[in-house]
Every structure is written in structure tokens, then in C-alpha cells.
């Protein structure tokens, strides 16, 4: 029983491969269709969550930036919660960027190759070089988004268990390869890997609860104990620590809350 996360440089190809794998394995699908439920659960709009996955606001628009980070936190919490069910294929939700250290969660990257450029050019009715330029611009925007959201380089091959380029390997063959890989024992859920995922899911739930009213919080969880790190000036420290303990303590599954208040900057907020 495993989790398969698929990422691609072309959304249509990501969709195609993921659907193929889910079909072949008989697994559940975890994609942007869950955003409606996530929006309902966290009291926001589905369009806002969808937009959060597409673009990042300017650093100068503080309110928009805060809402964006909250939207991302909601998505992470929803995704990680659903992943506890196992046996699913996940795509379109950037899960490969924040689901780390879970051994039964396989990460696959699919690169579309030159044929995709030719196909895009044909569909758009433009010369090939324009399609290539459009794709390069799209990749650049995507890179900026992943760095802003998770401070991660999405194209870094070391993030993935396997990267497949589709120039000479056709999508059907790629699906077969992924399905075959998922059957290896290494990608079957075990007690420890399930525990890691449970901890991640709990941390994400606490993070979203805190993100409603505060920024600059980082949450880690282990067996129900939660450690929240935050940045706060000395004069507000006591008040903020108390607020964090109160909010985090109310989240189902949390048995203990510890707060580390610091003055420095964080690399990431989740």
C-alpha cells in the first residue's frame, strides 16, 4: 500500500500520467478536486486555494501574502490528512514539495520532452520557437512560485525517486514503470513511515490553526507532542507564547505544546 506523488513540467502530462497510474493501480485520486472540501473545512474560497497554487503575491502586499500563506497551509493540511488513507495517487497539489521523510510516499517527476513543445505549438497555432519560449517563461514562473512557497527547487532531480523524460519513453511505458516501482517493498507503508506521515499531518493541522491569526510560525510534531517555533520581539513574547499554546492545544491529536520564541528569520513557515 503506497502513496504515489507525480509532478511534471507540463500540467496536462502530469494529469495524464497520474490518471493512468491511478487507473492501473485502482488507487484513489488526490488532486485539485479536493480544494472545494478544503475550502469548506477552513472557511475560505476554493478559487483562493486554486490561485494559491498558481501564483504568489508580491512581497510588498503584506495582507495578500498572509492570505496566500494561509491558503497554502490549508492545502497542506487537507492533503496530508487525506494521505493517511494510503493507496492513492497525488498530483497538482505540490505535495512532492512538502511531504518529506515518508518512505512509502514515492515521488516521480515526468519531463515532457521536445514533443510537448511541438504539440503545444500545434494547439496554439504558433511557430515552435514561440511555444518553446512560452514554456520557458512558464517554467520560470513556476520556479519562482516554488521558491517563494517552499524554498525548494522543484526541478532538482535529487528530490525524486525517479525522473522520466518522455522523448523516447512513451506515456504508457512511463505509467507501467511507475506502477512497477510502486510494487517494491520499499514503497509499502510500514509502522514507522505511517507514523512519520501522521506526525506531518498533525503539524500541518496545528500550523493552519495558528496561521489564521499569526505569521512566522514553524511547527513540528512527534507522537502528539508539538513544537512551535516563532519569531517575536521580547515585549510580546509572553502573550504570543500563551496564544500559541491555547490555539495549538485545541487541535485534535495534540497532547503537549512547546513553544520556542526566537528573534531570527525562518527559512520556511511550514
Amino acid at each position: 500500500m503506497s502513496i504515489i506523488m507525480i509532478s511534471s513540467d507540463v500540467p496536462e502530462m502530469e494529469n495524464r500520467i497520474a490518471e493512468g497510474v491511478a487507473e492501473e493501480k485502482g488507487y484513489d485520486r488526490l488532486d485539485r478536486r479536493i480544494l472545494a472540501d478544503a475550502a469548506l473545512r477552513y472557511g475560505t474560497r476554493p478559487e483562493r486555494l486554486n490561485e494559491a497554487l498558481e501564483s504568489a503575491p508580491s512581497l510588498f502586499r503584506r495582507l495578500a501574502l498572509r492570505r496566500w500563506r494561509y491558503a497554502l497551509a490549508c492545502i497542506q493540511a487537507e492533503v496530508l490528512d487525506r494521505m493517511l488513507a494510503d493507496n492513492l495517487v497525488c498530483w497538482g497539489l505540490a505535495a512532492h514539495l512538502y511531504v518529506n521523510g515518508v518512505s512509502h510516499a514515492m515521488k516521480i517527476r515526468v519531463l515532457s520532452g521536445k514533443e510537448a513543445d511541438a504539440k503545444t505549438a500545434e494547439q496554439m497555432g504558433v511557430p515552435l520557437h514561440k511555444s518553446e519560449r512560452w514554456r520557458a517563461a512558464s517554467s520560470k514562473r513556476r520556479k519562482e512560485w516554488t521558491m517563494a512557497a517552499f524554498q525548494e527547487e522543484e526541478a532538482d532531480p535529487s528530490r525524486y525517486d525517479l525522473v522520466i523524460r518522455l522523448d523516447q519513453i512513451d506515456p504508457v511505458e512511463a505509467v507501467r514503470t511507475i506502477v512497477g516501482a510502486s510494487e517494491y517493498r520499499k514503497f509499502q507503508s510500514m509502522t514507522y513511515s505511517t507514523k512519520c506521515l501522521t506526525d506531518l499531518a498533525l503539524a500541518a493541522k496545528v500550523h493552519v490553526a495558528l496561521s489564521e491569526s499569526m505569521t512566522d510560525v514553524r511547527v513540528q510534531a512527534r507522537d502528539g507532542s508539538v513544537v512551535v517555533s516563532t519569531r517575536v520581539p521580547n515585549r510580546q513574547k509572553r502573550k504570543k507564547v500563551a496564544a500559541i499554546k491555547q490555539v495549538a492545544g485545541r487541535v485534535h491529536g495534540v497532547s503537549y505544546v512547546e513553544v520556542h520564541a526566537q528573534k531570527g528569520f525562518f527559512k520556511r513557515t511550514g
Partner: protein
Amino acid sequence: MAIITISRGSSSLGKTVAEQVARRLDYRLISREVLLDASTRFQIPEIKLEKAIHDAPGILERYRHSQQSYVAYIRSALVERVVDDNVVYHGLAGHLLLKGLGHVLKVRINAELKRRVAIVMERDKIPEEAARRRILEDDRQRQKWTQSLYGQDPWDASLYDLTICIDTLSVDMAVDFICRAAAAEGFQATESRRRKAQDMAMACRVKAALVDEFPQVGVTCDNGNVLVYTGSGGDRGSGKLAKKLRQIRDMEEKIFHLETHPGVALPPDAV
């Protein structure tokens, strides 16, 4: 039947994977033999060839072109070795030197630095810091070499058909993936692909014969018709070039036709 190149950072278990793939598919396994071939054919010490394919070009290289020549020799030797396919190559830059051949399965094996350091410590009996420095320097040289000669980053996954993380997937799994991919239709050696490989071997031979005196030429071959492009450098040295080409024509029986295209930019598939 395919040609498989396995690229990797140093001490990333790529050699182990290559050996097992070759064994399972009953393919020939080549690596160092390419340098020996090139050394024998072109009368260049093997150590110089190894340096040319391993180290980034130095400042003087811009004026000497020796590295360019050595790479051309190595490329020619490599293409000769793979022209009959059913081969696994696990040396340096295979995915770049065999660019243009359709039935080449290009594989990259990645391993975490920590693991590579442990391998080097064990193998070379050196402390951790020394092992780390050696690996990082090696990576740096690879990166510089690939950037300066091909304008690409060797870690870029888009250069390869498969990139496998050997830390999470075992050697056996990696071998499975590679063997399965090698059976895919996209990597089968059809008649036209074999023909193209033979043409590339010819183009590489002609290039290797010219590169020392004429480092800027590009060569293509199509069904035995060899075209030599001199770029936009004008007609300087054309008499010398013509004489050299006549010598090559005399030596190479399989050249059906040979002509030069002076002042024409090199096509993208020229060697």
C-alpha cells in the same frame, strides 16, 4: 537492442548498476576501453585523454584547442564501439558524446553526498573531510567541463531519459528500471537508426582527422555523403583543407561523396 549510457557523480554506484545491467541483458560493457582505443588510434597518451574528458578546460585552452581535439578523438572511439549497439557505456559524458543517436537510453544515477563520502572513505582509506573535498572538486570539474563544452549542467534531468535516486531505490531496482526501459520501442535499433549510427561514426572519423588543424569545422554524414562545414570564417586555409580532405577521401573507402560548405553555419547535428 539499445545503447545504454550510465552517467553518475563519482562514487554513486553507477559502475555497479552498469555491470549488472550488462550482465542481465547480455550486453557488452565498456568504459575505459574507449580511452585506450582513442589513445592507440591517435597516438595520444591515455592520461592526456583522461584529463581532457575529466577536467574543465583551462584558460590557455582557448588558444590551444587540444582539449577539443582530444574530445573529438574520444567521441570517435566511443561511437565506433557502440555502432553495433547492445552495449552499456558507463564512462564520462556518454549522454553528450552520443547525442544525435536515436536508440541511446541515457540514464543518470544520483546518490546523496553522505553516501558517496562513505564509499570514498572506505575505498581510498581517507578521512571524511578529504573524501568530501575530493567528491566536491570532482563534481565541480564535471559541471565546468559540461558547461564550457556543451553549455549544459550535467545535473539537469532533462539531459537523461531516466534519472534514478540510488538512495531510495536500490541497485536492483535501478537495474530493473533500466532493463525495462531498454526494451521500449523508442530505444530499439531499427535499420535507419543503425544506418545513422554508421553515418555518425564516419562523421566522427572525418572530424577527428581534421580537428587538429581545423578545430572549427563541423562534419555531417548522410548515407556516406560527407559534408564539411567551415562556418562563417571565410575561405582562409581552404587550399590546405582541400588537400587534407583529399587525403581523408583516399583513406576512407566508405565515403561515397565529400564536399565542403564554406561560409555556412554549422547545422545542429554536425559533429
